[in-house]
């Protein structure tokens, strides 16, 4: 339904970002539609930031943090997981499918797993229609002042 989706991945630099890096070194291919944003900890991903990704036209967003018990800041990954749960419910109310947002947990060594996650999520987003935000955006509705 959406062959060229725009996907934003907020990846913790202590695990998922390193895993993505390793995947590159090991020549593990992962989906090219994914734009990775490195962050110090998934606990620092504010809901407003996720929403702004959708507002600017992302078809899907995933947050990838450390495995349980391995957060460098103790529980940032758990907080992120809770926030993602809450945000998924909020997306439905706003008018976007909850499936467009997901939380994954990996370690820095899990390069292959990162490739799987990326492929899995990209396939899911390709199965959904393009973001209605972007469609409307193209139709010429004026931009947003985010004062």
């Amino acid at each position: 339904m959406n062959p060229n989706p725009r996907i934003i991945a907020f990846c913790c630099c202590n695990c998922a970002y390193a895993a993505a890096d390793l995947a590159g070194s090991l020549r593990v291919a992962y989906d090219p539609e994914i734009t990775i944003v490195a962050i110090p900890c998934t606990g620092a991903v504010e809901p407003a930031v996720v929403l702004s990704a959708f507002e600017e036209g992302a078809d899907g967003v995933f947050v990838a943090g450390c495995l349980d018990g391995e957060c460098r800041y103790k529980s940032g990954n758990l907080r992120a997981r809770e926030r993602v749960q809450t945000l998924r419910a909020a997306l439905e109310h706003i008018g976007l499918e909850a499936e467009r947002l997901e939380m994954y947990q990996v370690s820095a060594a899990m390069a292959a797993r990162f490739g799987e996650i990326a492929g899995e999520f990209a396939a899911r987003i390709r199965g959904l229609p393009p973001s209605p935000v972007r469609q409307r955006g193209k139709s010429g509705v004026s931009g947003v002042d985010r004062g």
Partner: protein
Amino acid sequence: MIVAEAKSFAEVAEMVSSFPRLLVAACAGCTAICGVGGVRQAEELAAALRIHFRIRGVALETEVAGVTRQCEPEFIEELAAAVGRTGAVLSLGCGVGVQFLADRFPQVPVFPALNTRFVGGLAAPGTWEERCRLCGDCILHLTGGICIRARCAKGILNGPCGGSQDSRCEVGDDVPCAWSLVWERLSALGRFELLAQIRRPRNWANGNGGPRSSGGASG
């Protein structure tokens, strides 16, 4: 402090739906501490509303601004310029904040983004419990420091009623019987004479005659 909760997104979206520009006004007081009324929540709500209306083909412009307390005119004044630009306000303050904004800016509509619920304290992280009904006639010294107005489902002064079972209230097993708590506390303090006294009917006049105020004109 004042405990509030976010209204459903659908209700907020419906009330602001005909306004192209909106000031989303946060409050750094009680509602921010409850995690529903601070600048962060205002930013989230503003973004959510913009996406919601964009999907429906409607452009919404928002501004987000926060003040120290919406319940004081001096702080509200800081919003005047933004109110002038947007022409409509969505307040993340408590009911008092919404009213103070509406009083200060009578020419623009002011909408409540929250439901203001009760006066309470932090029982567990993220969980607030009602502890005071603001009755203006405190008898906590007679009840072992347990407010039966706020914590007894019937607010009775000579309890417990017959619906108390295993120290639980008849309205639900998750609600402790306030009068059982009073009994335990006063028994532990050895103050049985307080339990035996009959309390006269309450004087409701204190909270029933229109808005209350404190201090004199000079205060």
